[in-house]
């Protein structure tokens, strides 16, 4: 199992970052998948705050799991999530994504055993340099195999 010291060393890690464009087809498919009516006035579904942040952070989910000493097969779960929309995101709009790991915590439950919570925060910055939205999340890493 990843040691607590190893885990704590990733706090402050900055992701490479990148760019993300809210492609019209992705908005359409996303709305269809989550059963949302297509938003009016070219407004993207608000969950693009999360989708765009994750897609533009510059590393894959597999790489993020690896930073925490885990793989997709370990049953990684969501703990908490927040989308903070300073304004609506628009279909076709492009953003720069930046952010990194903000916190780690090890816990032990009677039934769940040892698990780690890794929190990360990502900003979507628009063409004018303004933060349009912030996605803050925590993933739960079960350490069953140890």
């Amino acid at each position: 199992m990843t040691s607590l010291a190893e885990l704590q060393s990733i706090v402050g890690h900055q992701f490479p970052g990148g760019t993300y464009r809210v492609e019209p087809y992705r908005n359409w498919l996303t709305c269809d998948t989550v059963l949302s009516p297509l938003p009016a006035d070219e407004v993207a579904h608000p969950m693009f705050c999360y989708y765009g942040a994750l897609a533009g952070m510059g590393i894959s989910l597999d790489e993020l799991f690896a930073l925490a000493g885990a793989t997709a097969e370990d049953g990684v779960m969501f703990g908490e999530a927040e989308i903070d929309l300073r304004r609506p995101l628009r279909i076709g709009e492009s953003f720069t994504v930046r952010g990194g790991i903000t916190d780690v915590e090890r816990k032990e439950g009677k039934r769940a055993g040892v698990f780690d919570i890794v929190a990360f925060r990502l900003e979507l910055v628009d063409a004018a340099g303004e933060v349009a939205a912030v996605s803050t999340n925590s993933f739960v890493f079960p350490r069953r195999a140890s």
Partner: protein
Amino acid sequence: MPTADVGDALPEWTVDPVDAEKMKTMAALLADPNPIHWDVEAVRDLGMGDRPVNQGPSNMAYVANMLAAWSGGHQHLRTLRVRFLANVFAGDRVVAGGRVSAVEPADGGTLATCEVWLRRGDDTVMAGEARVLLPA
């Protein structure tokens, strides 16, 4: 546009059933490598039952949809913060709901803070808080 008073219940929004095929589309859209969203064997191997597990962000999206239906559109959502308390599985019936917990004047309208949740029967599978700007 709706008015909001503290204690008001938000109109419920139901998904029945949660569809395994939608999970596959979402996994592809998100480039999500976690097999619990499409591979029943992987779900079994992890001792999580025998049905695919819905993506957490999709559960969040259901609550966003509920808030949009109430407020008049997705453009009114300002924040949505949730805790994931239990998995939602293919075939489940889930209901998104909420209640207004505070209202305050804001630039352009009224800012309503709402307690929100997603429930399966009597079980709350996701809970949190949202802030929605209701235009004047």
